[in-house]
């Protein structure tokens, strides 16, 4: 934990599962931004073939909880969690995988990566993808090439997925600043981390879905 304390700042996403509608706008926006950057395109193999495959930093999954008539559908965006104790970093043999001191973003130096896949094995969340054309490990960068870009208006200096979300389900900020929007949301809304059992201390957290009480007509149906 000394790593977490020594960092003044930890940028992260806080995902509001209560309002995510599963539109995948964050997925396409992420792909668009990150395939257009200076690091080179994210590989797409056989995009129009029978067995397409591609590199994505962000996915939206869908889960179903409980049973009728209380069934809930939960859309669940999933990307790198920028762990405070990232298990992917110490295992990297070249130092290509690293966590930035200044803002806690976990990044891969594509020029140092040898494509051994060990960091991907060491991530319990499956957050890393080997790019099949560049043969290096890739992952969410929290749009590090966008959030500090002084040439774009300040209100746009957010990750592409955050900009794209039509329901404001993705909050972005410094989780080490107790007064930030993300810290307040985590505090007030019972924000939680994924797979806490592995002590990775993910910086990204999720705000749980709050169940809306059933309507009177639904209660009638129960009888």
């Amino acid at each position, binding site marked *: 934990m000394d790593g977490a304390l020594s960092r003044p700042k930890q940028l992260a996403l806080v995902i509001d*599962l209560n309002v995510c509608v599963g539109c*995948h706008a964050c*997925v396409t926006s992420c792909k668009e931004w990150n395939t257009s950057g200076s690091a080179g395109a994210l590989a797409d193999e056989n995009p129009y073939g029978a*067995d*397409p*495959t*591609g*590199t*994505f930093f962000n*996915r*939206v*999954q*869908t*889960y*179903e*909880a*409980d*049973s009728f008539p209380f069934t809930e*559908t*939960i859309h*669940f965006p*999933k990307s790198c969690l920028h762990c405070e104790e990232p*298990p992917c970093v*110490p*295992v*990297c*043999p*070249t*130092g*290509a995988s690293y966590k930035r001191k200044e803002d806690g973003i976990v990044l891969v130096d594509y020029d*140092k*990566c*040898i*494509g*051994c*896949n*060990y960091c*991907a*094995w*060491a*991530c*319990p*969340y*499956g957050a*890393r*993808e*080997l790019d*099949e054309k*560049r*043969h*290096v490990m890739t992952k969410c960068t929290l749009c590090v090439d966008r959030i500090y870009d002084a040439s774009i208006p300040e209100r746009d200096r957010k990750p592409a997925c955050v900009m794209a979300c039509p329901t404001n389900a993705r909050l972005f900020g410094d989780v080490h600043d107790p007064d930030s929007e993300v810290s307040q949301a985590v505090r007030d809304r019972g924000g*939680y*981390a*994924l*797979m*806490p*059992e*592995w002590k990775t201390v993910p910086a990204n957290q*999720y705000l*749980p879905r709050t169940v809306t009480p059933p309507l009177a007509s639904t209660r009638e149906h129960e009888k």
Partner: protein
Amino acid sequence: MNPAWPVIFFTTFAGWAQGLVIALAVGSLAGAPPTRELLLTALSVALALSMIGLGCSALHLGRPERAWRAVAMWRTSWLSREVIVLPAFIVCVGIWLTAELAQRGTPLILLVAIVLTLLLWVCTAMIYVCLTFIREWSHPLTVANYVLLGLASGLLLCAGLGVVTGDARYALACAQWGIAFTALAGLVRGASLIRNARLRPVSTLQSATGIRSPRLKQMSMGMSAGAFNTREFFHGKSIWFIRNVKTGFIVLAFIVPIVLIGISFATRSGTAVLAAAMIQFVGLLGERWYFFAEARHPQNLYYQVIG
């Protein structure tokens, strides 16, 4: 996990070479050295096998031309440590062979060879042991398996080379130690198979998503196309196939070699010793495949249903 053939071949070939080096070094230090012909032949074979292993390991990399960078993070990464110790082991075997060719072998080089061999096994095994959430791997039995399987296969190979070069005394000693270590390795591998079969997953769909409902299922992994996540971590083989690989490696790596060495003791058959060494190697390739396939990665929880 989806077993990666370069890693399977690398670890099995390197383990074979390491066991062979131990078989030569310990006998020499114990005052019952192999004949010069066996020593030179076996050291050459060990050198060749470890070079083949090194070549296989490079095939696993997306960017093998940058492999030299992998020595950088030895303070934290077992893979980096392995990348340092493997060439050191190969160089040490090369120096030993050169020294023997010049008839200037010293006990010091033998001791260094033993230390590097053991270090290499530890580094290789710790690469897997240190991944705490892959619970099939994260146990001292993994280290024991890498060491014992390498020792058993190296001893049987040394016995086979003793037969080929006509050093019957050394071949017999290696066959005796080889059958003992094969039996021991079989018991330890059996223990890890039993342990892994009894493991209950720590991570669940609930802990992976934070959705507390006891009735929770994935409806869509968010894509219909393939991805690294669906290729790298799933072997995609049927339960029937997996069971047969398990039975196959138990038979080929342990039972058949023990029976064949037993036959060789009874009949003085050199062919049976050679056959035992070769069949065990094939069995160990199956064992290593199974080692990867039986590891269940928690990320697979997120990739269950295409939807």
